[in-house]
Every structure is written in C-alpha cells, then in structure tokens.
C-alpha cells in the first residue's frame, strides 16, 4: 500500500515535470531552479505523508498559536 502510494505520487509528479520541462527552457535559470525546488518540496511532502499520515501539520501549529484566544470568546 505504501509502496503503491509512493509510486503513484512519483508518477504524477514525473508527468507534471515532463509536461512543463520543454516550456521551461525558454525562460531563465531562476524559473528552472524555482520549479525544480517546488517539485522537490512536493515530492518530499507527499512521500512523508504517505509514510506517516498522522504527521503534525500547519493546522496544529495554528491551533497551538491561537488556542489561548478561545478562552476570551
């Protein structure tokens, strides 16, 4: 199941990459680097989420910061 999830995520990202890569060559280096970093971030996050679905996320951070406001309300 986990292998399948990782494979599926990788396939989708590779497809996006193959679709966009020819169009990127026209633009500058900065666009290419940003695109590559964004794809890497996507892949790392997606694989982490497939392996650890209960990983604490930004929602918990927001809850932690704003928990104290609740008591006023």
């Amino acid at each position, binding site marked *: 199941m986990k292998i399948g999830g990782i494979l599926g995520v990788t396939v989708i990202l590779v497809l996006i990459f193959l679709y*966009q890569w020819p169009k990127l060559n026209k633009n500058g280096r900065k*666009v290419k680097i*940003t695109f590559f970093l964004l794809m890497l971030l996507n892949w790392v996050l997606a694989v982490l989420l497939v392996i650890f679905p209960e990983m604490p996320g930004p929602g918990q951070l927001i809850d932690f910061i704003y928990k104290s406001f609740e008591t006023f309300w």
Partner: protein
Amino acid sequence: MIEKGRISYLELALIMYATVVATAILYIPYVTSQHAKRDLWLSPIWGSLSGFLIVMIIVKLSKLYPGKTLIEYGELILGRTLGKIISFIYLFFLLHDTAIAFREYGEFIESAFLHKTPIIFVTGSIALSCAIAVHGGIETIGRCATIFLPIVLALYILIYVFLIPDLNVKNIFPIMQDGIMPSIKGSIAPHAWLSQFSLMSFLIPFLTNQQKVMKWGMFSVIASVLTMVFINLGNLLLFGGIISNLYFPVFEAARFISVGSFFEHIESMVIAFWVLGGFVQLSSFFYMLTLGTSQWLTLPSYKQFVLPIGFLIIIFSVWSIPSFEEMIQGMGTTMPFYFLTVQLLIPVLLLGVAVIRRKRSNSFLP
C-alpha cells in the same frame, strides 16, 4: 507586469463575491448557530464591519501604490528583508486558506454525493480543472465569473422561493432573547469569511479603470452580506431551532423541496449549479496564490508554476486538516482569529507604515 489580462469592475465584484460566498453559505449557518441560536441571521451584519474596514484599507493602499499587489508593496513599504518575511507569512496563509477552501469543497461533495470516493480524487479533479482556468489568466476567471454567477445567484434565491409554503415566520421569534451578545459571538465566522476581501489587492492592479474601485468593493461586500443574511434567514424560517444540528442546512433545504409531488430531488441540480460557483472561488484562490508566489520570488512568469502549486495545495488540504469534525470545530474557534490577524493586521500595519513614510518624506522635501 506578469499578468497582461484586464478585468472590469463587475468582474472584480463577482470574483470577490464568489470567493467569499461560495463556501460561506454551506458552512456559516452551522458555525454561527452554535453561538447565536435564533439570532444567526444578525451575525453577518456584525461581520460586515470587518469586510468594509478591509476594503477601505486595501483601496487606500492600492491608491498609494498603483499597479502593485500586496506582495509587491509590502516590500516597498517595509524594506526588503522585513517585507519578504511579512509577504511570506501572507502567502503561507493564502496557501493554507486555499487548501481549506479545497477541503471544504471536497467534504461537501463527499458528504452529499460521492460517499465512497476518496476525498483526494474529488479535490484533485477540481484542482486540475481550476489549473486550466488559472493557466488562462485573470481574464478567463473573470469571464467564468460573469457567466456562472448569475446562474448560481438565481439558484440561491430559487431554493427558498420553492420553499415558501414551508417557511414559518414565527421561527424568527424571539429576536435577541439573551441580548445582543450571542449574535456578536456567532459573528466570528462571518468575520473570518468577509476578511477574505483582503485578497482584492491581487485583483485591483488588473482593472482597466481604477477610479470607482471603492464603490464596487463596497458593493461586493454588501452583496455577500445580504446573501449570507438571506440564506441564514431562509434556513431559520424553514428549520427553526434544530438548525444548530444540521451540518449543511442549504443542502437539507434543497432536499426538502417538493412542488406538486412531481418536482422533487432538486438537490442534485443544486449541487451541480453550486459547483459552478465553487469553481470560480477555487480558481480565483488558486490564481492569487500562484501570482503571489511568482511575485514574491520576482519571477518573469507564473504559468509554469500552476501545476506544481496545485499539487502543493492538494497536499496541504490533506495535511493541515485531519478530519471534517476538526475543520468545523476550528471554524468556530481558532480559525477566525488566524484569518483576522493575517488579513486585517498585515494591511493595517502596511497602511500605517506607508502613511508615516509618506508624511516624513514630504516634510523633508522642500
């Protein structure tokens, strides 16, 4: 400038209306009624205060820095480093907000129609179709809004027109039984939704003509507030006291329609049309996020990043919200404070610093 398309005032007002109202009508009746009970129709009126305030601030800022979005003038106002940090907080919030909007859409479709489909397919497929609209640019989204929203608006009204025989006006009484406080407490969710008018700063630079933007922004706020009041009131008149137990009262109301016992099961039509409004909402969020990200990184184009950012949104929509119950609970407790601190405090801070800088530079010059 990255974006070459231009929109009209009407398109601006309609895009902002869709951005606020599409999910608001689904979730606001439940969240508001937890505090406000029978006064839930008063809450959006209190919530309109933050909508008006934010529109005024954003329009002031865009007059001071014409042709720039919040991400760009944040850097001009606060300097490079601090400006980048503040813009990053705003962008991260926008990513989170977009993810929440996609999740809200997915949860609604799932609980109404596709009970057994994994939610990631529902959100992923709408993200793909939104990506096409975003790739087309702001003009595409504006045209979609002008075509789709009249249909959606007619639908909101028609649901309750068909239900007129079942509406019981006595359900509205007693008005303000426990004083004014419950309705103000319940207004926290409308405040959060209407604070999303700060996203207008991404659209104002693309107007063909910018003199009357204040008037049209206010018009959009008033239209959203009236829609929320109308929907809340319609649900209250139909369901009475049990409204605080229904997750999606609008959907339940559509299910209730039965005209002459042959005109039934309207809810499938309702969802099909509601998705049009949801599409405009999600693609405008998606567009603003993509545009903001490429402006933050000062890139020459945004179109290459539509698909990767769409993927990131889907990851966040799974990651940041563990379950439907926690999302609904968060909407009534922590989420509104988060929305208000980012969307109200950051523009207020920027406006304050900008005005002070203008004053000082004027007094130094001869």
